[in-house]
């Protein structure tokens, strides 16, 4: 009876989507040659696809509904159980470490290069995770700080000949300053306004870079940015790539270390409290503005360092690399992986960046998939793939009567 009903509803959905996508999927006009191309096959695919997806959608919604009715259990998932048990995670870590060490020697330069970009995104994701995952501030202009880092290395190198190792902390610092600069006035804003202002800020930075030719060389960008050098040794291009890979691995480890320490610190807990309830948090005596500012500045610092590495990796930057959609991709890695969870963000970034790279034919569907991922994740699994489990503190002392 109910199953029959579901099928009927899915059929209706399928007809509805065929109607909905009709002009855009089926008809393609060429306004120059005045010809119309009718692609009826698309309509069939939409109909069949919509039917099955609608069934799946309904099933998932019902399942979610039932899950809500049950007592929400705090039982950790599979991943959490593994990561909590040293018997499992120590061998895994050792294996992973060895794999990373031999990776650039085992695989081609192309693979290493892809891995470098993925690791840059891991770093960016972890940085954004501080802002979005921990402090609950939606930052849509994150790529602006990435751009600040990249441009500060490129420009400092071009004008003053500053090397990578000096530029790395400097780029981070500069981006951090920009984070404070932006954060300071907008802290009073609520979540969604904050998102829009940060988006506006990101676009301002990009448009300035595009239009201020004397400063940033405009849309043509800056080329010939040197890769990092190893104590002045003469390295071949391949060696430089491998070197960059190891630098990045170290930096990611450093990032994980810092965030791990931050999470359990006073300020980390203040962030989480702020995310849950701003007003209650204020009532507990937490300085709202300062706490938010710290999250912003720290997140920006990581983006800045990521930017410096990005510039060093590609050796060419222009404003086209820093559009709003780049921010959205980074956001997507955080959301998919699991907001607030380090392991989640890392796997999210690796999955989202590596998968489209390896599935070449899939490349053009990359952005559309990201859009779907964002919506589906929010509807069905807002915690992400690897949910962050809130620490519970138990009283271990003796109760006094």
């Amino acid at each position: 009876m109910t199953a029959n009903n579901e099928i009927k509803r899915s059929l209706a959905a399928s007809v509805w989507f065929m109607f909905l996508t009709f002009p855009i999927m089926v008809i393609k006009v060429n306004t120059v040659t005045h010809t119309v191309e009718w692609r009826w096959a698309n309509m069939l695919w939409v109909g069949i696809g919509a039917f099955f997806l609608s069934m799946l959608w309904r099933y998932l919604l019902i399942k979610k509904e039932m899950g809500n009715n049950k007592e929400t259990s705090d039982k950790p998932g599979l991943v959490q159980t593994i990561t909590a048990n040293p018997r499992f995670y120590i061998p895994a870590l050792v294996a992973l470490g060895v794999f990373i060490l031999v990776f650039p020697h085992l695989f081609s330069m192309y693979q290493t290069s892809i891995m470098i970009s993925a690791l840059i995104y891991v770093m960016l994701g972890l940085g954004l995770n501080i802002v979005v995952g921990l402090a609950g501030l939606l930052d849509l202009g994150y790529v602006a700080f990435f751009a600040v880092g990249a441009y500060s290395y490129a420009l400092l190198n071009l004008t003053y000949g500053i090397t990578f190792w000096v530029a790395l902390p400097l780029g981070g610092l500069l981006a951090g300053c920009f984070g404070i600069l932006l954060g300071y006035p907008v802290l009073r804003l609520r979540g969604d306004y904050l998102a829009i202002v940060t988006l506006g800020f990101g676009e301002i930075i990009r448009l300035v870079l595009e239009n201020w030719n004397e400063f940033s060389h405009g849309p043509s960008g800056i080329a010939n940015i040197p890769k990092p050098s190893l104590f002045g040794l003469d390295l071949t291009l391949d060696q430089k790539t491998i070197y960059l890979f190891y630098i990045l691995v170290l930096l990611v480890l450093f990032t994980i270390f810092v965030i791990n320490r931050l999470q359990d610190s006073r300020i980390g807990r203040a962030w989480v409290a702020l995310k849950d309830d701003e007003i209650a948090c204020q009532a507990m005596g937490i300085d709202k503005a300062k706490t938010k500012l710290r999250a912003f500045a720290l997140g920006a610092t990581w983006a800045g360092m990521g930017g410096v590495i990005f510039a060093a990796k590609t050796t060419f930057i222009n404003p086209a690399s820093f559009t709003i959609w780049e921010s959205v991709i980074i956001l997507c890695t955080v959301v998919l992986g699991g907001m607030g969870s380090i392991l989640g963000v890392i796997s999210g970034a690796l999955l989202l960046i590596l998968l489209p790279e390896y599935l070449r034919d899939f490349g053009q569907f990359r952005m559309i998939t990201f859009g779907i991922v964002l919506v589906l994740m929010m509807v069905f699994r807002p915690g992400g793939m690897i949910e962050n489990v809130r620490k519970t503190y138990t009283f271990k002392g003796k109760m006094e009567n």
Partner: protein
Amino acid sequence: MDFDYFMQLFLGGLTRGSIYALIALGYTMVYGIIQLINFAHGEIYMIGAFTGLIVSSVLTMAGMPTLGVVIMAAMAAVIYSSAYGYTMEKIAYKPLRNAPRLSALISAIGMSLFLQNYVLLAQTSDFLPFPSLIPDFDFWEPYAHLISSPELVILATTFVVMMLLTVLIKFTRIGKAMRATSQDKIMAALLGINVDRIISVTFVVGSATAAIGGLLIASHIGQINFYMGFIAGIKAFVAAVLGGIGSIPGAVLGSFVLGWTESFFTGYISSDYEDVFAFIILVVILIFRPSGILGKSETQKV
């Protein structure tokens, strides 16, 4: 500065502003009812323009007279945009009604990304030339240096749409229900208003006005592409915030103010930083007067 040039910029700003207003109305209505920034609203407007182009091209090639083409294209654009707005609400926002606002916002961004790339994949990433739907009128010839007749039509259409919308919200039963829902959803539901239906209606009406805006601007500029919704959406959002988000007269006023400032800015200072300017206005307003010109400031309670 001669007066004619000033008038030209003034009227140009008015036209610009009236198109922003058509899009900003959707933002402000949706925000007024469910306190959500519908990030994908710009995409609805883009879909309206695309549908208009496809339908009008097909009909023109089939040999339909111009007036018929214009009417059919406008109807198709309105119907399809509304349908997209409706479906979007059902998929991306309805399941999240009780979720944190961050989730709904991320879902909206996802929807925007999806719709853009859907049009990109199904159609093209190139700019498509859009036929001018509004002809030049002969009787308007002596004043055409100030404001062209298509611009005049844009102004008139906007005016009519605004009037219809005011009537809908102020005097009809559904408008009353919309106002009640925006005041207090739970109370409205207790009084027998079908809140889900009202939210759907809001999306449909907002999408329909956005579609009209999309058609008008596409026919005015003469080209469309899958990315056009983003910047227009942001600007309309700026206008809505400027006027006070949630307030319908505010959205209209904000749009005109934004249209004029942009027009004078590009006319007298520089056109390079036109888009930057809109963003700067946004940041400045949100910092100094987040409630906008006509908006009420709200206090947050626990």
